[in-house]
């Protein structure tokens, strides 16, 4: 995708070559949260969101919007059941291997 290649070139100068600039991340963050970026781009965007509070906050707002919009979407019952059981085990017994 041409736009992505363009953005990937616009890195922050004089820093780790794998650190994307905020302006590039702003363009990529929604693709990243939709699981639509390739592995390398996901790694770079994720790394940036980890390190940059402003971009991280923005990503969190988009995640919350997604969570609200998806509220009525069906989820696989068996997965929910397994995760609930996992959670209940945690709540009752604590972390595996801890006293």
């Amino acid at each position: 995708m041409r736009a992505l290649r363009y953005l990937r070139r616009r890195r922050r100068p004089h820093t780790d070559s794998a650190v994307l600039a905020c302006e590039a991340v702003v363009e990529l963050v929604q693709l990243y949260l939709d699981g639509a970026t390739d592995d390398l781009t996901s790694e770079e965007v994720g790394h940036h969101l980890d390190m940059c509070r402003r971009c991280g906050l923005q990503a969190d707002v988009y995640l919350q919007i997604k969570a609200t919009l998806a509220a009525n979407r069906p989820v696989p019952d068996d997965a929910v059941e397994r995760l609930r059981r996992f959670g209940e085990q945690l709540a009752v017994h604590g972390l595996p291997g801890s006293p």
Partner: protein
Amino acid sequence: MAAAHDHPALTDEAAFELYVLPEVEVLLRVALSMTRNAADAEDLVQDTMLRAFRGISRFDGRYPRAWLLTILRNAHVNRNRRRRPELLRDADAGTSLLETQTPDDSAEEVAVGQTFDHVVEDALARLPDRYRRVVELVDMEGLSYRGAAESLGVPVGTVMSRLHRARRRIRDQLIASGLVSAGSRR
């Protein structure tokens, strides 16, 4: 162990049950959308729950969903990193923010709850039809970009630009309502 959350009498285990378990479905929906893969999504939510359990004693009980979604995002970064070990720069980098901020540090700038949902719904209703339709297909019905493009008979690029613009408008509405800090505005 006694905890910092709203109910000092709660054990960490009880707090986990109160704040985390009710959000499992929400977390799974978001994880499915981020990973596009059922097994990865389930693993990601499991990771998130483990991290939440470890951090629950520092969680003050405000906006559990926002707190959990931030943890989910951090867990997702670490999973990507594990899949691509050749890119590993700092093994602990993925947890740095989570460890150094109080767990609700990001959540405090975003009030979540019924009001948040109402503003999102209202903003959605105000969108032009062509934008709203894309949000409905992708975010509400769970179609991929390609699936939405086929359903609407438009190119994938059009779906992406409409969807992203639509969500940006929803976020602007949240900022205008004071529910989201303008600090997250660009």
